[in-house]
């Protein structure tokens, strides 16, 4: 069970980071007129097509003492990045990036331009427009982004296997733990954990898909208004 909680903790950290970094990045991607934008879009989508072995291999080398990530981390914190929870968070953020960006981008691009113009004409700045117009209209996209990055991180295996080092409570996530049980021929424990994961994943997805879009918007609007009034 320790492994399951670790996975949930990791997934929560990763979706929080991806939400905070993903909204501005997706906003920029949705609105930028820059000609080279497609290059950045391709980079963001890379983890979708690259096998985890490629990412894991690059990360293992990059996190090493001769790699760029490893050097920066070493200088800042005095220890290496591989085999740490922080290392897993960084790896998972990269691995799950497209799962947060794509739904956000799709949602932002589908906001009616007229509304943005209207907002600007009425004197709202870009940030206010993002907060009061774009985000409320993109609630389903935001929820999808959070859930997908959370679920994708829970289901992550290859990258964690390659850079984690299998430390109980630190890097032994539930997918690794299940793999270990199968390796040790402990099928009973493996199936217990697998069943827990299956049930949890289904419940989360069912809640999200079952949630009415209107419910999301109804929840968001008063909350955002309250925040706005406070500012």
């Amino acid at each position: 069970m320790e492994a399951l909680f670790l996975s949930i903790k990791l997934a929560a950290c990763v979706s929080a980071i991806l939400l905070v970094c993903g909204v501005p990045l997706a906003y920029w991607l949705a609105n930028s007129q820059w000609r080279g934008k497609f290059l950045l879009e391709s980079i963001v989508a890379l983890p979708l097509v690259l096998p985890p072995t490629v990412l894991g291999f690059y990360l293992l080398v990059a996190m090493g003492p001769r790699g760029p990530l490893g050097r920066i981390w070493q200088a800042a914190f005095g220890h290496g990045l591989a085999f740490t929870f922080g290392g897993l968070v960084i790896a998972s953020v990269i691995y799950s990036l497209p799962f947060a960006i794509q739904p956000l981008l799709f949602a932002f691009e589908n906001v009616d331009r007229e509304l943005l113009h209207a907002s600007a004409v009425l004197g709202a700045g870009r940030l206010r427009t993002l907060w009061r117009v774009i985000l409320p209209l993109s609630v389903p996209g935001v929820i999808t982004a959070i859930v997908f990055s959370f679920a994708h991180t829970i289901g992550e295996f290859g990258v964690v296997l390659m850079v984690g080092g299998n430390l109980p409570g630190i890097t032994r996530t539930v997918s690794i733990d299940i793999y270990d049980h199968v390796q040790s021929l402990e099928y009973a424990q493996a199936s217990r954990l697998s069943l827990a994961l299956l049930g949890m994943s289904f419940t989360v997805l069912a809640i999200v898909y079952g949630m009415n879009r209107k419910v999301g918007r109804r929840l968001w609007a008063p909350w955002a208004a309250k925040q706005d009034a406070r500012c």
Partner: protein
Amino acid sequence: MRLTGRIFFLAVLLGSASAALPQSPEIRVAAAADLKFAMDELAKQFEKQKGAKVNVTYGSSGNFLAQIQNGAPFDLFFSADMDYPKKLEAAGLAEPGTLCEYAIGRIVIWTPVDANVDVTKEKWAALLKPEVRKIAIANPDHAPYGRAAAAALKNARIYDRVKSKLVYGENISQAAQFVQSGNAQAGVIALSLAISPGMADGRRWEIPPDEYSLLEQGAVVLTSGKNKLQARQFLELVKSAEGRATLKKFGFAVPAVQPPPAGKR
């Protein structure tokens, strides 16, 4: 739909065409990760002698055991221990009488050449130094080399002091990657990997074999295989003087020659 139909037809056509081609004999071998270099060489020798192709898949023995139990189409299984082949024999998945010990694994402490510790002089004490922050070993829960590493550390009475430094590779090959990439500063790994091309320039100290229980490695011919005759021949090659010399060259010890099975006393 029509397009799918055509593709399906094409696939069937190609499938039957390839099935009609004369097949050169081929054996499929599942081999423990520590055998990588030795088995490549043995496969080459066999191909030269018999003209049969040897397809080797490397991986963790526990993984192979699970796969074979679930019908993986291997002809021959070289495990990193004796238990897994014995389990297969007990389950009736091995050809009777083919279970044999073919090699004995050796373990070393390995550090990169630019490490701040000299394991060739300091031996066990090197692992206690603060410069060594992480020590890579294979997972003792299911990897035979991991069990041997943990047993040797306990035998040297330093296990409790280095426990917090240990990181676990899924198999011995991954433990080697962890230290070769510099993410761990030392590793307890297989000699067969420590002398492989990518790691031969590092420093190593072999842990005396009496400090851990022997890493006896067993092999079996599998009943599910399609090519049992060639599989038996390949196993014979591995056990022959030539095969033993190859195994020794690539960092294994070999078991004493077994007496001939006929009742000579």
